């Protein structure tokens, strides 16, 4: 089963939770889908076995064949192409291209447009295929194609943990879409709860079973509990705020190594999730 760990707000503890699940559960795989800022490797220290560059097709224009009819530029909804017939030139703005293939499809001259690969990031696989991470190249606008590309590398382990990007837009949907269960990690602050509420909207829209983990829990603040009650969502686990955990985290030490008793909590959690979705 695929368990996605998401949050809405960044920095609430997605990676702490996902790496803890990975390190506590036997035969689990960890997939870092937060390709803009992948950090899981810091805590897992994987042995990388394979590293592949990931590419998307982009058009290349042959100006000897091109008749400068402008059909490609008119069809491109991303405004990535400009044709200047007087100068017999085609200007291509690669960073605007979404690799949809429409320009090639509408081009009446065979061979005037061919597609060539453009590298957008790196996918690394390690720990016998149980660790996968994607890293988006700097300056690449959309993370979605790389997130979608990583999916081909997901092993069919009993438990697969998907570490999601923050926010509530496309990259998150792309990650959650194929999951069987979503853990929403929040912190008991008004910011955390506001973003949790947005993330909950997506998870409900996608009709995924879900529960909440409250990180940096503070007994004096009942924000998260009140929210969970009002929305009728289960709180799966509360991880109290601890300076020791924060300091360990800062050095890249996983939660379950700082506080080993959490291992059994995370194991139980996976079993409860298994029951929920079966």
């Amino acid at each position: 089963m695929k368990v996605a760990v998401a949050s809405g707000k960044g920095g609430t503890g997605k990676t702490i939770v996902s790496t803890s699940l990975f390190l506590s559960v036997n035969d689990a795989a960890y997939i870092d889908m937060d390709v803009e800022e992948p950090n899981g490797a810091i805590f897992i220290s994987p042995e990388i076995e394979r590293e592949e560059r990931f590419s998307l097709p982009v058009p290349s224009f042959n100006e000897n064949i091109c008749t400068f009819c402008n059909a490609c530029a008119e069809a491109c909804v991303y405004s990535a192409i400009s044709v200047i017939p007087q100068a017999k030139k085609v200007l291509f703005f690669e960073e605007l291209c979404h690799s949809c293939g429409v320009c090639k499809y509408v081009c009446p001259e065979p061979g005037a447009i061919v597609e060539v690969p453009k590298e957008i990031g790196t996918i690394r696989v390690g720990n016998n295929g149980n660790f996968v991470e994607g890293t988006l190249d700097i300056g690449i606008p959309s993370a979605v194609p790389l997130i979608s590309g990583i999916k081909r590398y997901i092993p069919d382990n009993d438990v697969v943990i998907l570490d999601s990007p923050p926010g509530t837009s496309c990259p998150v949907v792309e990650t959650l879409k194929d999951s069987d269960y979503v853990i929403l990690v929040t912190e008991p602050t008004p910011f955390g709860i506001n973003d949790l509420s947005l993330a909950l909207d997506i998870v409900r829209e996608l009709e995924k079973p879900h529960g909440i983990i409250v990180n940096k829990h503070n007994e004096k603040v009942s924000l998260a509990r009140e929210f969970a009650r009002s929305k009728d969502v289960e709180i799966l686990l509360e991880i109290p705020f601890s300076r020791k955990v924060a300091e360990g985290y800062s050095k890249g030490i996983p939660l379950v190594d700082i506080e080993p008793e959490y291992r059994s909590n995370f194991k139980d959690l996976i079993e409860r999730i298994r029951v929920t979705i079966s």
Partner: protein
Amino acid sequence: MKRAKELVIISGKGGTGKTTLSGSLVRLLGKNEKVICDSDVDAADMFLLFEPETEREEDFRGKSIAVINYDKCVDCGICQKVCRFDAVALEDGKYQINPYSCDGCTYCMLACPAKAISMEQQVVGKWFISNTDSGSMVHARLKPGAENSGNLVTMVKHQSHLLAEENGISLILIDGPPGIGCPVTSAISGANLAVIVTEPTFSGIHDLERVLGVTGHFQVSSAIVINKYDMNEKNSRDIERFAKEKDIPLLGKIPLSTCVMDAITRNKTPVDSCPDIKSIMEDILGKIKKLMDIQ
């Protein structure tokens, strides 16, 4: 009048304290000294600190997406074959467009032999102009799961400039999104200074380096603030050394403080209730003004 200068607060990693810093700067700057712009449109939180009264609310229209007319559809499946975004699936015997996956490229519409597909523009969010005790604020809310947040970021920045021009304001203070992708690119493009809030964790440092790659790529001047610096003083020293080597100004170091956490929990900025933090924030603001050459 000259175009207002843009100060943008970003971080790479989420949760390092962007809104804590930008909220504090909002409080320290005079009411008519700046326009407040929350460009973290998929998780906008700044409004929680300033109880905005909404004055104007507008729909934001994003891309168009494909819609199938089933009176004309002949179930040939060509739309599914040509789609590069995996947006077409055969469900319940019908080809269906997944609006979350559709990128609006029009390939299916062009390729459909029955001319059964048209494009329909979607409302993907709302943007607002609001009044707060601390000045006018432009903010937005992206519909959960929607795309194009970069364009919505550009829209809130554009509206902030219009507002600044109308009121003779010369600074726009932008609370930015996390990450390094399109929304961040839109938030920093044209900015006069990007202040990067980092924390002394391995994750924070890793993401700081990546986000500096983005500001460098777009040639935006950067400066660094280390938040929760005493969580790991060794890492903080490493960041300081790194900043010095790269010749990036370090504007200040903020300690991990329960007073800050309590303030945020009560929807207050630390400037309102933590005197020690307030003086650090004042110092940071002074350095920002110097770097941006503003009075």
